[in-house]
Structure formats: C-alpha cells, structure tokens
C-alpha cells in the first residue's frame, strides 16, 4: 500500500497529540455514486436510490446518501496515513444525513501516540464534513492503529 501521497508510518508516529492531518476533499455526491454504492455494498435500501420512495414513504425531499459511504470516505482518508493492516479499531457516529450534491471533506487529528511492547500505537479522530472543514459534521469517530 504505497502511494506518493501516503505519509510514512514513522512520520505519523512522530506527530504529537493535537496535530491536524491534511484534509481530503471528495467530489460532490451524485446519484450515480449512490447507485454504484448500492450495488458495490449490497445495500439495496430504496431510501438511497429511489426518489419516489424517499418522498412518498419517508417524507424526505429526496434520497439521502448512505451513512456507510461517508464512513467509506473516512476509511479512504484514514488509509492515506495508516496502512490498512495496521488498523485495529475504527468507529464513527453518524450525526447528519448526506444529500445529493454534498462535497464531503475529511479531517483528522492525532489524539494519542504511545509505545507498548516495542510498538507504536496511534489514536486518531476523523470527521466528515458537509463541504468545507468548518461546515456541518456528517460523521465523526476514532481509529486505533498499531504501526
């Protein structure tokens, strides 16, 4: 899992608690993306792909994005900094629903760096925003990795 933009594990471990990670912007959510996600994830809930259902059955103005798509973006963000096989825990709380057109931005902060049994453990907070980093929070949570 190497990529030119990936920080080395050493770099991450050198960061101190409170350090902000570079943010990552995703393109605006499209109906195509929601349809692809329904297929790729196996989540066929019509609330995410059928406008008629969203309006008439759920009383919503339109379909809403899959919460797990937001979390998937956070997962992509996390694995820019932490190799996937280093991840031990990853959890989020969904705080608002995403809508078609939302351009999600992910931000992150180092919470804790510790050494145990010769290995470096890192805790990170990650947040997905509706638009810019100071915009409404869609989901936020924490990941634990051992480097």
């Amino acid at each position, binding site marked *: *899992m*190497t*990529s030119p933009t990936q920080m080395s594990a050493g770099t991450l471990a050198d960061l101190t608690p409170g350090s902000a990670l570079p943010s990552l912007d*995703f*393109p605006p959510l499209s109906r195509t*993306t929601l349809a*692809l*996600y329904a*297929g*790729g*994830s*196996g*989540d*066929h*809930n*019509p*609330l995410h792909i059928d406008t008629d*259902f969203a309006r008439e*059955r*759920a*009383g919503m103005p339109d379909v809403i994005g899959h*919460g*797990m*798509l937001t*979390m*998937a*973006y956070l*997962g*992509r963000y*996390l*694995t820019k900094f932490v190799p*996937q*096989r280093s*991840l*031990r*825990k*990853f*959890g*989020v*709380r*969904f705080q608002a*629903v995403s809508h078609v057109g939302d351009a999600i931005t992910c931000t992150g902060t180092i919470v804790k760096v510790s050494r145990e049994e010769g290995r470096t453990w890192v805790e990170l907070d990650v947040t997905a925003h509706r638009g810019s980093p100071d915009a409404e929070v869609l989901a936020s*949570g924490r990941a634990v990795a051992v480097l």
Partner: protein
Amino acid sequence: MMVDRSLIGLQLRKYVCVVEAFQLRLFAKAIGETRGCYVDPAQAVAAGFRAPPIAPIFPACLGTNPDDPLDWATALGADLASILHGSQEFEYFEPICAGDRIRVERRIADVYEKKGGTLKFVVFSMECVNDDTQRLACRATQTLVVRNPAPTQ
C-alpha cells in the same frame, strides 16, 4: 412486531459468503478508490496481501445477506423508511481478502429507547470468521435508529 427488548439475543440467519473480486472492484469504483492494492491482484501481493484486501468498512457489506439483503429490517418488523444508521464500529483481527470464504454471524445485542420511546436504538453485533481457518477476522457493531416505531400492518 414492535421493536422492543424482546428482540435482544435474536440471531439472524448465518451464512458463508465468498468475497468476490468483482464486487470489491465495484465497491472501489463507488467510493473512488483507485490505489492498486485494492483493485489489482499483483499489486496486492506486492503489498503483502494474498489478494486485494477489503476496504476498512467492507465487513459491513459482508453483513448484508446476499440472499436477502434486507433480512435485518424484516427481523425488526420496522418500516425501512423509519430506520437510520446511528453508529458503526469495527475491530480488526486479520485481513479479509478477495477469494476468502467468510462465515457471517449476526445477532441483536441490545435494544434501548430515548425520547419517551419515539426513538428506538437497535444494536447489531456481527462477526466475520474466515471459514477455512476458523479465525475471527473482524467484529462489527452497528446501531440503528428507528423513528416513531409502529406495528407493521
């Protein structure tokens, strides 16, 4: 059926699913994942995996029964339109890769309510076990929020 604490302990149907490479490619496309190790077997091997690994949240997709993707909603007896995803957690023990056979076990671990019962919270616990090695690969916890639950017709 009402969403209430009598659901605690309910097990959903167990199944074994094969992690299909084509589904991982479609999933990668959906989330805009283009890094080689997630889509190209050779690059996955070069990165130390036996095959392309699943994305960090993909265990939740394995928790969708391919024969009945909405069986969890049927188990709750709640209208899909009234259900939102409250929170999601994963604990990772070993990689899951394309080609793996994964046994999925899901149960309702907790049910509680807030706001005088107008919001019900249902906690699903899921384990993904590699069916060839019998080793636990991932444990996931999913909390769903059911708004204004009403008996089904």
